């Protein structure tokens, strides 16, 4: 129910199938639940289906926020 991961679309095939890549691991998955998808998109993958396209802008904003917090960490870089 919850285990879903972002993977990158590397190839599109007929009949609503795409090949996705996650760190070199590839699988054919269904894109039947998406309105549109393009090579290079990141999709959230669950039980062999793409559930949504990742919003790259939002992802980058989230990462930037956390990176800023990490930089402000009073314990300093590499500190524990």
């Amino acid at each position, binding site marked *: 129910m919850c285990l879903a991961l972002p993977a990158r679309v590397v190839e599109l095939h007929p009949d609503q199938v795409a090949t996705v890549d996650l760190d070199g691991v590839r699988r054919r998955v269904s894109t039947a639940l998406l309105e549109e998808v393009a090579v290079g998109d990141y999709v*959230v993958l669950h*039980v062999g289906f793409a559930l949504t396209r990742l919003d790259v802008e939002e992802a980058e904003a989230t990462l930037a926020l956390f990176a800023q917090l*990490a930089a402000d960490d009073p314990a300093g870089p590499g*500190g524990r």
Partner: protein
Amino acid sequence: MRYTEGLRDPRAARALAEGLRRELDPRRRYRIMEFCGGHTHTLCRYGIPGMLPANVELVHGPGCPVCVLPISRVDQALQLAARPEVTLCTYGDMLRVPGREGRSLAAARAGGADVRVVYSPSDALALARARPERQVVFFAVGFETTTPPTAVVVRGAAAQGLGNFSVLCNHVLTPPAIDAVLDGDAGLDGIIGPGHVCTVVGTGPLVAIAGARRVPIVVAGFEPLDLLQAIGMLVAQIEAGRSDVENAYTRSVRPEGNPKAMATVDEVMEVRPRFALRGLGELPHAGLRIRPAWAAWDAERRFELVDELVADHPACICGSILRGAKRPSDCRVFGTACTPDTPLGACMVSSEGACAAWFEYGAPR
């Protein structure tokens, strides 16, 4: 974009925990429940409860669809697996869940039943295509995240004219379950909302609950920083006396969810008037079944299945634990008769259940 490192940075975690500490009132307790088993997994794996101030209590929620599936439904899967012509396809999570008398699909397989673990319902469909002489049944479980794939596969079976494929549909719905959890005296101050369920259904279905129950809900992603951020947002709402639904998983969740996925589900399935969730009892509109138009692929119609209510063990207090009213340590069989290897109740049956997590990782502080 292998970006998970940025979502697991311990320095940002410390900063978020610090921010939380500054926000909260040291004189009160905050009881926060994560609804979703995947969140329980992340919290335990990264030791997040231990990073929080002592007055923030994280209460593990219903766990996941494995936990709340009634024993009688597991028994139905076992009935099907016992038929020599049936190949029963299941997600790995269900393989060792005991039915009545403690038998599981794994035990059935050891006894000669044709039970296969699949990663995707598409694999079950492909199997039906490859083995026309077998009756392939897909044991469909899951909340709203997992339901659209099942619906797609039923449509696929119809399009391919497959007469040897059917689905035993046990999909369940989150809002009635959250509502049941909030019903009563759990004293929960906030809920961490299920990020992938909301990826499908959006945040709308949670709004009515938050308002009616006056409990804030923050929808979170599944990396440790996602959860720390969501907990901080909940504390801020609690302090401000708000009970809104907020989305902290904006990279995946849109307010409207995935309309195409929802339409696909709606085409193939309908809401059952009532469905029992283990530990929470019979709830209205809590489960889905396959619509009459797709009856040809509904295992409940194709096969005669017995649906006999199976009571939980008399010592089981999972209902109270699922509602956050009691702790696993309050249960007199916790860790003795009831363990992850010999689960008696819903909360121990999957590794994300409250009791299983408690057993494995200790009491979250």
